[in-house]
């Protein structure tokens, strides 16, 4: 019961912490995108065309060694792009491992096959096939997540969105995504302020019911604010001449370095696809 109370007391703090983390992550990404690394130098369109196939191939490859090779390449690219490996380990590898590891753990014992190790007290055996499946699942998820995080960390979000148009995404969608991203931070700030002011007004402990009321009421305030804000943003857009049509300036330019790197990435992708079938 005490543990339950302790947990409840931490709800506001934990929500606050996750908001702050998200904001920090975003600022950190913006900083990393300004570094002078290999990925940062590439045209965002080239990056998308180069890395997206690698994500797909890593997620779908059938051979473990191909996935492992792609993972090594991802780490090399991260190092060349000045992305700290500690940060990747903490923010990507560990969190993917927690989830995927938990899911794939029972597969070690449940998959029929040749037993290689028997647990001392439970009498269940780890099978070679089970181990292979578990490692394969984890490696695939890790590699795909590393590539996608690298793509995002080394590209300013606005450029990435504009570059998404090489995938023939409708402009309206690109603009909506851009605005969504922009307003996520405003709403996060709003929510953060709400939780913080609530916390500063609270003396003593709130029981679970009260905590829930506070959390859902904040969600209600936020949705009201969202509606009001969208009305205001719309009027602001109208007053600047917005008539429903969206135009985006394309200022990207490719150089020899882009083409060389594209050739390298495409070769890696073709090789990985060929051997990973």
């Amino acid at each position, binding site marked *: 019961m005490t543990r339950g109370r302790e947990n409840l007391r931490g709800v506001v703090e934990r929500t606050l912490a996750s908001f702050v983390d998200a904001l920090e992550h975003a600022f950190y990404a913006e900083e990393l995108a300004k570094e002078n690394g290999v990925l940062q130098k590439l045209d965002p369109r080239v990056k998308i065309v180069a890395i997206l196939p690698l994500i797909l191939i890593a997620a779908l490859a059938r051979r473990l060694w191909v996935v492992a090779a792609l993972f090594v390449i991802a780490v090399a690219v991260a190092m060349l792009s000045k992305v700290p490996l500690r940060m990747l380990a903490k923010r990507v590898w560990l969190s993917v491992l927690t989830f995927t590891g938990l899911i794939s753990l029972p*597969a070690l014992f449940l998959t029929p096959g040749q037993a290689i190790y028997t647990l001392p007290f439970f009498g269940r055996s780890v099978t070679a096939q089970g181990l292979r*499946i578990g490692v394969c699942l984890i490696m695939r998820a890790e590699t795909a997540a590393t590539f996608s*995080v690298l793509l995002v960390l080394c590209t300013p979000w606005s450029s990435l969105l504009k570059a998404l148009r090489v995938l023939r995404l409708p402009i309206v969608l690109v603009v909506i995504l851009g605005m969504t991203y922009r307003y996520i931070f405003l709403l996060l700030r709003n*929510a953060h302020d709400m939780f913080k002011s609530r916390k500063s007004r609270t003396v003593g402990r709130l029981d679970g019911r009260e905590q829930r009321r506070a959390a859902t009421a904040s969600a*209600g305030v936020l949705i009201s604010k969202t509606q009001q804000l969208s009305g205001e943003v719309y009027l602001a857009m109208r007053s600047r001449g917005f008539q429903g049509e969206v135009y985006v300036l394309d200022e990207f330019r490719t150089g020899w370095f882009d083409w060389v790197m594209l050739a390298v990435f495409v070769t890696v992708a073709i090789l990985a696809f060929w051997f990973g079938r």
Partner: protein
Amino acid sequence: MIWPAYDVGLLRMHIPDGYLSPSTCAVLYGTAIPFWYVAFARVKRLLNTRLVPLLAMVSAFCFVIMMFNVPLPGGTTGHAVGVGAATVVLGPWASMLAVSIALLIQAVFFGDGGITTLGANCFNMAIVGSIVAHLVYRAAAGRTAITSSRRVLAAGLAGYAAINVAALFAACELGIQPLFFRDASGAPLYAPYALHIAIPAMMLGHLTFAGLAELFVSGGVVAYLQRTNPALLGQRSSARTDEAARPPAATTGWRATRPLWIRLALLMLLTPLGILAAGTAWGEWGARDFSDPQMRQQITAASGNIAPPSQQPRGLARLSSLWSAPFPQYAPPFVRRPAFGYVMSAVFGSGLILGFFLLIVWMAGGREAEAPTTSA
């Protein structure tokens, strides 16, 4: 930990990369696209130029709501997807789009949920979730007043049902992987658990914790809005009357037939379902099946234990050689995967029928076009 949903561990259903086979990913992207298309068209018709800012704000809201820690009875906490609240306030179509955009940003920016599995995640949470939430809310709320307490209950139920049905879909998608996708040694290539493990494992967490988080958020948001901003809850019904008051759209052309096209595309994608069925279709035996002992057994079992004639019927044998199909058994010889063959056959077959009718229309239209000139 930065990632918003990781502390709920197994309770989340953002399927990561590498858990679903390429064909499952493709089918789920394919299934989601018509819904996105219809939702986008409907929301755009309703909002017109307001579409861009409203959808952007609501997507941002859905993203932020996914980060809320909701205290649950018993001292634990959970995260809500927010699909119940979004559907109740905005209606199912806008909610579908907003939750999808939020999931896209989560996947791309936060690495939460895979890129190859984004179609699956959007289908489960945004599309199925919104539809279920909408149906449950409408059924449970009935025609009660906007401020009725029954609406709070209805919204809570809608959120709870939405998240559980979405989890069931996710569990089924994961659970069918080992049935279809194994390597040469028989080991599963993607998600390793069969349906009898995947469904209970997924549903246990959702029926209890994750479902409750969604229930509290949906019900709580509606209760709060009833007290402070009931107009926001009424907006959805007024939007619908606006739509009803609008002059009817053109009853001919692309717009009128669009739902039919979408349904046709869906049916095409669903054709490989037939592969799942065991045994053969009764009465659809080929001439050669009568001489195959295994097929004979199946025919006997399907025909109330009456054995088929020992020789193949002569008329059947003669007629069966008259015409050999370009796609025997729904798959041309060069296609190795039966599922792909089915989809290809469906596209080819529907294309033939459509082409035939277009030809008739064109010929008839040509005559009609000629008719007025001659009369004038």
